[in-house]
């Protein structure tokens, strides 16, 4: 037990600071991915609800493909394939040398576009939960589409979306561990490095598990609070 405290502590031989730093990296990359996913998800949901048939087809294909292939594969494609593609593009434009995709960016985009596929379904469901009469009323009073979106759709759709978004956030948090394969020093990669460097795999993997649990517990609480605030004007039957 004393050994463990020394190993994971903040003393000269302790890995505490590195593990905490890696935890922050996990939060940063998950949050970036989730935010990106919200943007993509909103766009896809819009395409499926309002778009032309061609756009709807494209949006359908997007959600089907990205929910259907392994996340790790998306990460590999973006990190290795992305570099190769950008390098080829740079060469075509006359530049020399290699163009790299940064591990953080590749990871955040990969998890983000996957998260976007899931979020689009949540947004679409939330939009459809809005009473049709409210939309008709908004049109009847002459609201522009943007004003209707801002005043009528967003406040209500978000309220319905919060529980689903909470789930998708937990997914993003855990998927961020996959980014360890491209060398980003997030929590799992740091635990593997520590395990390989000290020959104490148990201590590192247990600590990483505990830190993931702290993150998901805290954010779960946050989403429940958000739901309570969002639903404060709604009477539950």
């Amino acid at each position, binding site marked *: 037990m004393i050994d463990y405290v020394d190993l994971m502590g903040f003393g000269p031989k302790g890995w505490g600071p590195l593990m905490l730093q890696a935890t922050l990296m996990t939060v940063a990359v998950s949050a970036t991915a989730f935010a990106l996913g919200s943007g993509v998800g909103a766009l896809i949901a819009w395409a499926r609800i309002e778009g032309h048939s061609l756009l709807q087809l494209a949006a359908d294909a997007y959600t089907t493909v990205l929910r259907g292939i392994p996340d790790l594969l998306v990460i590999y494609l973006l990190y290795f394939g992305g570099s190769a593609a950008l390098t080829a593009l740079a060469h075509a434009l006359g530049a020399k040398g290699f163009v790299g995709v940064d591990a953080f960016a590749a990871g955040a985009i990969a998890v983000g576009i996957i998260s976007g596929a899931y979020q689009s379904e949540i947004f679409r469901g939330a939009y459809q939960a809005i009473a049709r009469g409210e939309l008709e009323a908004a049109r009847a009073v002459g609201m522009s589409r943007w004003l209707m979106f801002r005043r009528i759709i967003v406040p209500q759709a978000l309220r319905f979306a919060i529980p689903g978004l909470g789930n998708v956030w937990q997914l993003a948090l855990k998927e961020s561990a996959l980014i360890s394969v491209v060398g980003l020093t997030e929590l799992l990669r740091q635990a593997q490095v520590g395990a390989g460097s000290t*020959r104490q795999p148990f201590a590192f993997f247990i600590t990483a598990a505990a830190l993931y649990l702290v993150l998901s517990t805290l954010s779960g609480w946050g989403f429940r609070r958000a739901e309570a605030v969002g639903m404060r004007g709604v009477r539950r039957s």
Partner: protein
Amino acid sequence: MKLWKIFAAGLVASLFAAAGASAQPKDWSTIKIATEGAYKPWNFTDSSGKLIGFEIDLAEDLCKRMKARCEIVAQAFDGVIPALNAGKFDAIMAGMNITDKRKEAIAFTQTYGRTPSTFAVLKSNALAKLPDAGKVYSLNPDGVVAAEKSLNDLKPLLKGKVIGVQTSTAQANFLEKYFKDVIEIRQYKTTEQHDLDLAAGRVDAVFASISYLKSVVEAPENKEMMLAGPRYGGGALGFGVAVGLRKTDPELLAKFDAAVGAAVADGTVKTLSMKWFGFDITPVR
């Protein structure tokens, strides 16, 4: 309408941010070297996050010889070759053995270390009594007959056993090539994962480089583990550890090759090897 423009603009901006251009001049005054950072004592990390180990010291020495400024980065081992070819860095020094399979994908310098591979088992396991303990066999043309005889002798003893090995390593290829039909090969992402399963009794033995296994069985928490059976090197197990480079960079290969040769010749490799391994891993020429 406006809204989707904002999203599209954000998406395009983030894609461009991702393309942080790292186009380099090709005079090799700066070199980016990748290592694993979790393979003690070849290359690992201390509690302040600094990379240390045999290959880190050696890389610094080689860079001095090449009059280059080097940056060493940590990268997961299973993606290291595609990442090299995708241009993430210029060289690999990650305890990587030269094998015929790897030579199809990348170029190697001459070797700077050669360590045979062997089995580690629990002292209570029947495999602890494998014959020829500690004897070294070479799978290179000069010793391959004796080595293959020894491998055939091992087959009945290993029949039906479960053996753990790190995935995409020379050791994994070796097991596939010689024991595929008699044992169950279980592949792991990292070596410490198969150690955990060895300790738990989920595998009968693990097969890895002796430079690594030696420090495992000597660790106080692994008192019940030991090395067993003969040791093998060369052939499918690789012709030694070397610097891996892209095939499209012959000038860099020539520079690294000369630097490695000089470091082996003047005893630098031996000094560093004694410091980190406690024994000499200098390749015999």
